[in-house]
C-alpha cells in the first residue's frame, strides 16, 4: 500500500462526500460560493486531461499550436451564450435533457434522427473517453513505485479506477427517474475539480518560472539560445499555418457547443439564465489562467528533459522534480480530476442519449407490436441508464486497450471534436433557422459523419486490411484525388485540417441545400416555430393545442406507474388537477386533454419526448389531423393579423383620401359660390342698362309724336350710352376672365414713360374739364424707359386717373420718382379717401357694386380689378395709401 493509493482512495471519498453534502445543503453552500461561479467552474469540464497533458505535449512540439482549442470557445462564447439561453428555455418547456432529444424534438420528434445523433455521439466520443482513462492510468503509474510486474499493476489500477468512476457516475448521475431533475451534487463536484485543476497547474507553473528558472524571461532566453545553438529542435513551423489554425479554432468552437458534456453542464444543469451572461467573460478568464503556463512548462521541459521524453508528462515530471510533496499530490489529483470530470459527465450525457433515443423507443416500439404497455420498464429506466453508463465506459476501456496506446491525447481529442461538430449545422441551424428540415438534418449528419470516418478514422485502420491500405495510399478505385487524407489535393492541408474542411463544408452545404428542397411536416413546422421563436413563445406548454383524443384517468395513471411509484404518479396527477381546477371523476371516465398533456410532459422528462409522445398516442385515441389543423389555425391567425394590419393601413389611407376629397369639395363649393355670385352680379349689372335701354326705346316708340327733337336726341343718346356701358362691362369681364385664366400673353416692348403720360393726359382732358379738376404731373428730367406691355399699362394708369378724377374734389396729381432699382408712379386725389380696412378689398371685382354705400360714380366697378390683374401679370406691386380724409394715393412700383 503506498501513500498514493491512500491519497487516491481518500480523494474519491472526498468527491463522493462533496457530491452528497452539496445535494443536501446547496442553500448553505451558496452563501459561500455564488451559484454563478459554480456554473462557470462546471463549464470548465471542457478542460480535460487534454489540457493537463496534451496541451503541454502539443506546445513542446509546436510552440503555440495548442492555442486553437482554447481560442475556439473564447471566440464563440457570445454565440454559445445566446444559444444556451434559448436551449435552456426550450428544454424547460419541452422537458428535454440531452442533445439527441433536442435535435430529435426540433425536427418533429423524429425518433430515427434522435437515434442517429445518439449513435454518432457515442462513436465519436468513446475514443476521447478512452484517452481520459489512459490519462488516469498514466497518472497512477507515475506516482506508483516500481513494481515487478508493472503491466499487470497498471491494468489492475486501470480497472479499479474505471469501476470507481463508473460507480460515481451511476450514483450521482441518476438520482431520480425524472432526468430533468438537476444533479446538484455532480455539478458541485465538477466545480471543485475545476478548482483543483487550476490551482495545481498554476502552482507548478509558478514553480517552474520562478523556482526552477529565475524568471520567465530567463527561461525564454535560455530556450532561444539553445535553439539557435542547435541543441534543440525549433518548433514545427507547420503548426503556424493560418488555414490550419482557422479550421482548428472553428472546430473547437463548434465542439464547445455540441459536446454532450458541455450541453449537460451549460443547459441541462443550469438553474438560472443569468449565469450564462456571466460566463461570457468568466469562462474565457478560466481558460486564460489555466493555459497561462502551458508554454513556459513546455519550453522548460524541452530544456530540462531529453528529446525522447513524452512531453505529455512534463507537468507530472516537474511536479516530482520540485520535491514538494504537496505540489506532486496536487498535480496528481488535478490530473485525475481533469480526466474524471470529463469521463463522468460525458458518460452520463451519452447514457442519457442512449436510453432516451435508442433503447426506450425500441422497447416501446416492440411493446406496441406486441400490443401491450411496456409495463415491465418500471423503475427500470433508472437502471437502464446506469447500465448504459457502464456499457459506455466499458467500451471506452476496451477501445483504450486496443487502440489508444499509439495515439496522442491531442490527436484523439481533435478527431473527437470533428466528430461532434458534425451535429453543429443541424443543431445551430435548427435553433436559428426555421426552414431547416428533418431530411436535411439527417442527410447532413450522415454526410458529415461519413466524411469524418473516411478522412480521419480510416487511415488508422490501414494495417487491418490490404483493401483499406490500398484506399488510404492511392485513393478509392485508384483515384488519387479522393485520397482520404488529402481530398482533391488541396495544398497546405494536413490530414486533420483536410478532415475538418471537407466534413464541415459538405455538412453545411448538405444541410442548407436539402432544406431548400424539402418540405417540413406539420409537426416539424410547429417545432421549428417553437424553437426558433422561443423568445416570443411565452406560454409554456404551447403544444397543448395539439392533443386531442381521450384517455381515462386510469390509463394515464397506469402509464405513469410504469415509471414512477404509484403513490407518486397519483400525487402528480391529483396536484395538477387541483391546480388547474379539473374535476377528476372516477377512473374510467375520459379526462381533460390537459391531463393528457401533463402526463406526456412528465413522461418526457423520464424517457424523452419522442418516446413519451409515442406512448401517449398509443393509449389515447388520437386524431393525427390535429397537427395540420393547429398549423392551419396558426397560419389563419397570422393571416388574420396581417389582414388586420392591411385593413388598418387601408382605412387610414381611405380616411386621408376622404379628407383630401372633403377639402377639394370645400374648395369646389367656394368656387361654385364665387361663380354664382359672379353670375348674379354680372347679370344684375347687365340688366340695369338693359332696363333703361328698353324703357327708353318703348317710350320713344309709343309716344314719338309727343317728343321734340331735343328730347328724342336725349333719349336716343342715352340708349347708345347705356349700350356702350353694357359693351364695356362685357369686354372688361372677358378681359378679366382672360387674365385670371392665365390666357393673356403680355406683349412686351420698350417705351418711354413720358410719351405714355402725355397720351394719358390728353385722353383725360374731357373728364378734367367736365369736373373742373386740376391735374399736375411731376416727372424726372431724365428719360425713363420701361419694358412692359404698353397698352395694358396704359389701361392701368387710365383707370387710376379716371378713378382719381371721379372721387377728387379739385385736384389730382401724378408723380413719377426714379431711383437706382425702381420707378414709383403715384396718383393722388383730394377726395374722401378710402377706409383703411378696405385698401385691399377695393381691388376685388364688383367692389363698387357690392358696396353700395359708397358714392357711385359712373363705372362698372371692374376697373381696379382689371388694373390689379394687369399689374400682377407684370409683377408690379401696387400700394394704396388711405389718406383719409385728404384723398387716396395709389402707388405703382416698377422694378427695373
Amino acid at each position: 500500500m503506498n501513500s498514493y493509493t491512500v491519497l487516491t482512495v481518500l480523494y474519491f471519498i472526498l468527491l463522493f462526500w462533496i457530491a452528497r453534502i452539496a445535494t443536501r445543503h446547496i442553500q448553505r453552500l451558496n452563501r459561500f460560493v455564488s451559484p454563478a461561479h459554480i456554473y462557470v467552474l462546471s463549464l470548465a469540464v471542457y478542460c480535460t486531461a487534454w489540457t493537463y497533458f496534451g496541451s503541454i505535449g502539443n506546445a513542446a512540439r509546436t510552440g503555440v499550436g495548442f492555442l486553437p482549442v482554447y481560442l475556439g470557445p473564447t471566440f464563440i462564447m457570445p454565440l454559445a451564450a445566446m444559444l444556451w439561453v434559448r436551449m435552456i428555455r426550450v428544454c424547460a418547456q419541452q422537458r428535454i435533457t440531452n442533445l439527441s432529444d433536442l435535435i430529435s424534438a426540433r425536427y418533429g420528434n423524429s425518433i430515427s434522427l434522435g437515434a442517429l445523433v445518439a449513435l454518432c455521439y457515442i462513436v465519436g466520443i468513446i475514443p476521447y473517453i478512452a484517452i481520459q482513462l489512459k490519462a488516469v492510468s498514466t497518472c497512477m503509474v507515475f506516482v506508483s513505485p516500481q513494481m515487478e510486474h508493472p503491466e499487470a499493476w497498471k491494468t489492475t489500477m486501470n480497472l479499479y479506477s474505471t469501476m470507481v468512476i463508473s460507480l460515481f457516475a451511476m450514483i450521482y448521475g441518476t438520482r431520480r427517474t425524472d432526468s430533468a431533475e438537476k444533479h446538484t451534487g455532480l455539478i458541485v463536484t465538477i466545480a471543485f475539480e475545476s478548482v483543483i485543476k487550476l490551482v495545481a497547474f498554476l502552482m507548478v507553473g509558478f514553480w517552474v518560472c520562478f523556482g526552477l528558472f529565475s524568471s520567465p524571461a530567463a527561461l525564454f532566453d535560455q530556450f532561444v539560445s539553445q535553439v539557435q545553438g542547435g541543441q534543440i529542435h525549433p518548433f514545427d513551423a507547420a503548426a503556424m499555418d493560418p488555414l490550419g489554425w482557422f479550421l482548428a479554432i472553428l472546430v473547437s468552437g463548434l465542439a464547445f457547443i455540441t459536446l454532450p458534456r458541455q450541453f449537460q453542464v451549460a443547459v441541462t444543469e443550469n438553474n438560472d439564465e443569468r449565469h450564462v451572461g456571466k460566463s461570457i467573460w468568466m469562462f474565457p478568464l478560466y481558460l486564460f489562467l489555466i493555459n497561462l503556463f502551458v508554454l513556459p512548462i513546455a519550453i522548460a521541459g524541452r530544456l530540462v528533459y531529453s528529446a525522447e521524453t513524452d512531453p505529455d508528462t512534463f507537468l507530472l515530471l516537474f511536479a516530482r522534480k520540485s520535491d514538494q510533496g504537496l505540489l506532486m499530490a496536487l498535480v496528481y489529483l488535478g490530473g485525475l480530476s481533469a480526466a474524471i470530470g470529463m469521463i463522468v459527465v460525458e458518460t452520463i450525457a451519452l447514457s442519457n442519449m442512449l436510453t432516451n433515443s435508442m433503447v426506450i423507443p425500441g422497447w416501446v416500439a416492440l411493446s406496441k407490436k406486441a400490443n401491450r404497455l411496456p409495463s415491465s420498464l418500471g423503475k427500470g429506466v433508472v437502471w437502464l441508464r446506469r447500465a448504459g453508463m457502464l456499457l459506455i465506459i466499458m467500451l471506452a476501456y476496451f477501445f483504450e486497450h486496443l487502440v489508444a496506446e499509439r495515439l496522442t491525447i491531442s490527436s484523439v481529442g481533435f478527431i473527437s471534436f470533428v466528430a461532434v461538430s458534425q451535429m453543429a449545422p443541424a443543431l445551430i441551424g435548427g435553433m436559428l433557422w426555421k426552414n431547416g428540415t428533418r431530411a436535411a438534418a439527417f442527410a447532413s449528419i450522415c454526410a458529415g459523419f461519413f466524411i469524418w470516418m473516411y478522412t480521419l478514422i480510416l487511415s488508422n485502420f490501414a494495417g487491418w486490411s490490404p483493401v483499406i491500405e490500398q484506399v488510404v495510399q492511392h485513393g478509392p478505385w485508384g483515384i488519387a484525388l479522393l485520397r482520404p487524407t488529402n481530398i482533391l489535393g488541396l495544398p497546405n492541408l494536413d490530414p486533420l485540417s483536410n478532415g475538418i474542411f471537407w466534413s464541415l463544408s459538405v455538412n453545411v452545404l448538405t444541410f442548407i441545400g436539402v432544406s431548400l428542397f424539402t418540405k417540413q411536416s406539420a409537426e416539424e413546422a410547429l417545432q421549428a416555430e417553437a424553437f426558433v421563436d422561443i423568445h416570443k413563445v411565452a406560454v409554456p406548454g404551447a403544444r397543448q393545442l395539439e392533443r386531442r383524443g381521450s384517455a381515462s384517468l386510469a390509463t394515464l395513471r397506469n402509464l405513469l406507474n410504469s415509471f414512477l411509484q404509484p403513490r407518486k404518479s397519483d400525487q402528480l396527477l391529483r396536484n395538477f388537477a387541483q391546480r388547474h381546477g379539473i374535476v377528476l371523476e372516477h377512473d374510467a371516465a375520459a379526462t381533460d386533454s390537459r391531463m393528457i398533456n401533463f402526463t406526456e410532459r412528465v413522461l418526457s422528462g423520464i424517457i424523452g419526448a419522442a418516446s413519451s409522445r409515442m406512448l401517449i398516442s398509443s393509449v389515447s385515441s388520437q386524431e393525427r389531423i390535429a397537427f395540420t389543423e393547429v398549423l392551419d389555425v396558426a397560419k389563419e391567425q397570422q393571416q388574420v393579423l396581417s389582414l388586420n394590419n392591411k385593413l388598418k393601413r387601408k382605412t387610414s389611407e381611405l380616411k386621408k383620401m376622404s379628407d383630401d376629397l372633403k377639402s377639394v369639395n370645400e374648395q369646389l363649393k367656394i368656387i361654385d359660390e364665387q361663380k354664382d355670385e359672379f353670375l348674379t352680379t354680372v347679370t344684375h349689372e347687365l340688366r340695369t342698362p338693359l332696363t333703361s335701354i328698353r324703357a327708353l326705346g318703348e317710350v320713344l316708340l309709343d309716344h314719338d309724336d309727343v317728343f321734340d327733337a331735343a328730347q328724342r336726341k336725349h333719349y336716343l343718346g342715352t340708349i347708345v350710352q347705356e349700350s356702350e356701358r353694357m359693351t364695356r362691362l362685357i369686354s372688361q369681364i372677358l378681359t378679366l376672365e382672360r387674365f385670371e385664366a392665365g390666357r393673356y400673353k403680355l406683349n412686351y416692348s420698350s417705351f418711354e414713360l413720358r410719351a405714355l403720360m402725355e397720351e394719358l393726359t390728353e385722353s383725360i382732358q374731357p373728364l378734367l374739364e367736365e369736373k373742373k379738376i386740376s391735374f399736375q404731373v411731376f416727372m424726372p428730367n431724365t428719360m425713363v424707359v420701361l419694358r412692359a406691355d404698353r397698352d395694358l399699362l396704359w389701361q392701368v394708369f387710365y383707370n387710376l386717373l379716371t378713378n382719381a378724377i371721379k372721387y377728387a374734389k379739385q385736384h389730382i396729381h401724378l408723380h413719377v420718382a426714379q431711383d437706382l432699382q425702381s420707378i414709383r408712379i403715384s396718383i393722388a386725389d383730394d377726395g374722401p379717401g378710402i377706409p383703411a380696412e378696405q385698401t385691399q378689398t377695393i381691388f376685388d371685382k364688383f367692389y363698387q357694386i357690392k358696396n353700395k354705400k359708397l358714392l357711385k360714380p359712373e363705372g362698372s366697378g371692374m376697373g381696379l380689378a382689371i388694373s390689379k390683374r394687369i399689374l400682377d401679370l407684370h409683377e408690379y406691386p401696387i400700394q394704396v395709401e388711405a389718406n383719409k380724409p385728404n384723398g387716396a394715393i395709389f402707388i405703382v412700383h416698377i422694378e427695373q
Partner: protein
Amino acid sequence: MSAPTILMVDDDPHILMPLEFLMFKHGFEVFVARNGTEALDIIDKNTPDIVLLDIMMPDVDGYQICAQIKAQPRLNNTAVVFMSAKSNPDDISKGYELGAALYVTKPFSTRDLVKKILDMVKAKG
C-alpha cells in the same frame, strides 16, 4: 278726383327718365328720388298712392323703405311696387312678404308696368 301720386325711387337716372315721362303722360303727379333718404323724405311730406321702388340702392335699400311704409298706418293705402334686377325667387317672395303689391323684374316692359299701375289705381277707386 285728384290726380294719383306716384313716387319713383331708383339710383339710376336713365330709368327714371322714361318712367317719369310715362306716368306724367297718364296724369300722375310724379315724385322722383335718387336714393332712399330722399325717398323717405318725400314720403313723410306726402301720401303717394304708388311707390315704385328699386331694391339695390346705396344707402337704404328698397326693402327697408317698403317696411317703413307698411309700418305707418297713414300709408295703408299706398301700394308698393318693386322693380329690381334681382330675380331670385327668394328675393321676390321677400318683397311680397314685406307687403308689396307687385314685384317686377328688370328689364321689364314699360307698357306692362304702366298698365298694371293704372289697374291698381282703378281698383282703389
